[in-house]
């Protein structure tokens, strides 16, 4: 089977600091890929490269056979990206913002409008459709962002910490949505710090540390390899950082006179 995303020897440096030191990765259709790693491991750099935000990298990135460097536009058209940190033009209304997104993906206006209405209704934001987003809560903005990533029905969906700010009900909706999208054959690239969610949602987990892949496999495989129970513990073990325990001890000791 042809991989949907194939990454070979991906390297990237900021100045003289090398962030990615040769990432190799093949992702297949219908996979939900949990992409995890400690802060500064190169997670968001990989995501930014994949979305076409950063173009000065070494190595090869191919999406459905298209080289990201040569056919950036074709690749971008297949990807839906949900950035973290609620980056959106919040003086616009959801309708205005999503219509802008739709037209950037060259969607027909009436189709686009129809989809926006249905998606927002499904998220319970129907009444806020024409209100400016500067008054929205973090969760509401996040829902608009998720809608903006799905609007053009992309084959590949990149989610960067998509659950931040969402309440428990919405989290259930999104988790459900992810597995339904995967069943339809969509490829999902899921980036997060929340290990318990990654453990449940993804059927393949990639752990990177200091710019290289240190673990690759399903949660069960990782458990067998490392002989541990939770993903959290596996994470701590593989990122070579047992200081977690010590840190808590040190913190407690700070009270000592």
């Amino acid at each position, binding site marked *: 089977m042809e991989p949907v995303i194939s990454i070979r020897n991906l390297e990237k440096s900021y100045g003289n600091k090398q962030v990615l030191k040769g990432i190799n990765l093949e992702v297949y259709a219908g996979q939900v890929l949990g992409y995890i790693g400690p802060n500064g491991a190169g997670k968001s750099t990989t995501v930014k490269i994949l*979305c076409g935000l950063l173009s000065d990298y070494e190595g090869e990135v191919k999406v459905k056979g298209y080289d990201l460097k040569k056919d950036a*536009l074709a690749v*971008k058209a297949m990807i839906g990206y949900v950035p973290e940190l609620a980056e959106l033009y919040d003086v*616009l209304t959801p309708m205005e913002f999503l219509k*802008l997104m739709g037209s*950037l993906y*060259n969607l027909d206006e009436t189709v686009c409008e129809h989809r926006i209405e249905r998606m927002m209704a499904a998220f319970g934001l129907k009444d806020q459709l024409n209100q400016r987003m500067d008054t929205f809560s973090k969760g509401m903005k996040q829902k608009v962002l998720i809608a903006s990533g799905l609007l053009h029905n992309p084959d590949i969906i990149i989610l960067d910490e998509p659950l931040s700010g969402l309440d428990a009900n919405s989290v259930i909706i999104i988790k459900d949505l992810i597995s339904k999208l995967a069943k339809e054959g969509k490829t999902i690239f899921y980036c997060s710090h929340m290990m318990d969610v990654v453990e449940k949602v993804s059927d393949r987990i990639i752990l990177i540390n200091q710019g290289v892949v240190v673990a690759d496999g399903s949660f069960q495989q990782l458990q067998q390899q490392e002989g541990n129970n939770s993903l959290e513990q596996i994470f701590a073990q593989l990122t070579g950082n047992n200081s977690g325990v010590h840190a808590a001890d040190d913190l407690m000791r700070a009270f000592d006179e």
Partner: protein
Amino acid sequence: MNFANRILLKLFLSPKKLYSSNGINTMQLESILTAKLLMDDRRPPSLMQGRNRKKVKKEISKATLSTMFVSAVMGSLFLFSFALNTTIVAQLTFYFSYFIFMLSATLISDFTSVLIDVRDNYIILPKPVNDRTMLMARLLHIFIHICKLILPMLLPGLIYMSVRYGVAGFLLLFVLGIFTVIFSIFLVNAVYLFILRISKPEKFKNIISYIQIVFAIVLYASFQLLPRLIGNIENFDFHFTNSSWMILLPPYWFGAAWSVLYNLNGTALEYSAAACALVLPFLSLWIVIRFLAPSFNRKLSLISNTGDTTPAVAVADKTVKKKKTFSTVLANLFTRNNSERMGFLFTWYMMSRSRDFKMKVYPTIGYFLVYIVVLIINSRSLSLHDIEQQTAAGKVVIISALYFSSLLLTMAIAQLAYSDKYKSAWIFFVTPVTNPGNIINGSVKAAIAKFFLPTVLVLAIAGISLTGVTFIPNLLLAMVNQLFICYFIVYVGNKDLPFSKTQSLQVKTGNFMRNLFRMIIPFSIAIVHYMIYTNMPLVVIVLLTALGALWLIEGSVKKLSFADIKATYTED
């Protein structure tokens, strides 16, 4: 969207064939521009930013129209240069000076805040939009933005020209105005690149706001001082036709070009200046496109990227500074307990570091200095002799100097409660603070130390060297009086905790009365002081009484409890 945006958008999008044959996706172009203009419409106008940046509760939807209106008003102010009693070349030189000046000032602030939006990177860049479309969208956005600024700004001048000098005058001004715009864009680009070269990207925004402050002050000064200077310089008109150094002034080029083209004759100097006006804008345009623009965009994106992609934390200061800094020394000197110290230091740091606070208070310092210069120029009949001998006129100068010195302090105190980061004030409400009065007192003291003591020091040196030690009791009395007034304002005012409110929640009612009192009380006290100025025993007695009053009111401010200040956490 309003009509102005719609017309300009239609106009700029009309050559659709031309765009699409150049590989530009017109549908994407149109929707990006529509969204951008819609957002411009909902942003508070840039000319009012800084001082009046109240977070208006009702939604802003006609920001563009009000910006255009403000530009038009600005443009009418420029007409003042035509009222100067001098030649048309000189008048136009002043006109173009203001024009270049205002345009650059606005562009400098808009380039970062309006035209280069960091969020573009996340929102538009991951979409299948090609580079040409994106570039065209940016360019057209800038063009439309500039059009909305300069057309209203030029309008009053154009009307004046067509009435006074007919169609030819009108057309010449219009064309030269466009040339000026091109030249100003070059200037702004150059300034940006220069700042980027000498500073770190993180500091960039601070430097831009300082430049804006300087611009505002210079503008105020020019309106105040120019007419006076013209009367004072000998052979003023002569310079404008014959002094060859005039060619160094870009506004002169455009003024001279107008005159040469209108009259079809002029001096050799005017001819060469006109040549500059016609050639240099295009040369600079070429430089901008060829050399500045590429690195400009790259560097600007560097600014927007800092903050999230640079993990480089300042590691340089590894040796933790445990030694006493200037601010802690001051805090120890002026405060008596921990809460007060905390209020002092907190306010001191915020005043020195918050861009928001500086933008509101620092221009006042500049206006104040300009005003002093104006006073000096106006009162040239007054000599140092008057001050030394303490004649009536001399005394007026001394007293007004003494009592104007707290102007800065009152400005600062009025701003102390407000901050962009007002939500951070939760720290006062979750901690077991029993006497918020202490914190308020500490922050007032910080403002005094920062904005009053330096002025007093200057006054003390000047006063003692001119009039001798007898000046000291009077200086002290004025100082104590002003501190009392300042504490009084705090005590009867809103009594807010430092940096805990947004500007929008400023209580409107009673503001007029309060401002009136703010004016009347110092004024009447100053008059009383003027009458007793030379009566030394009386001055000392009043000084002691005032000290007592100051001590009492400081005590009451210190004792303010949460019940007294009625402070609540502001959640927007």
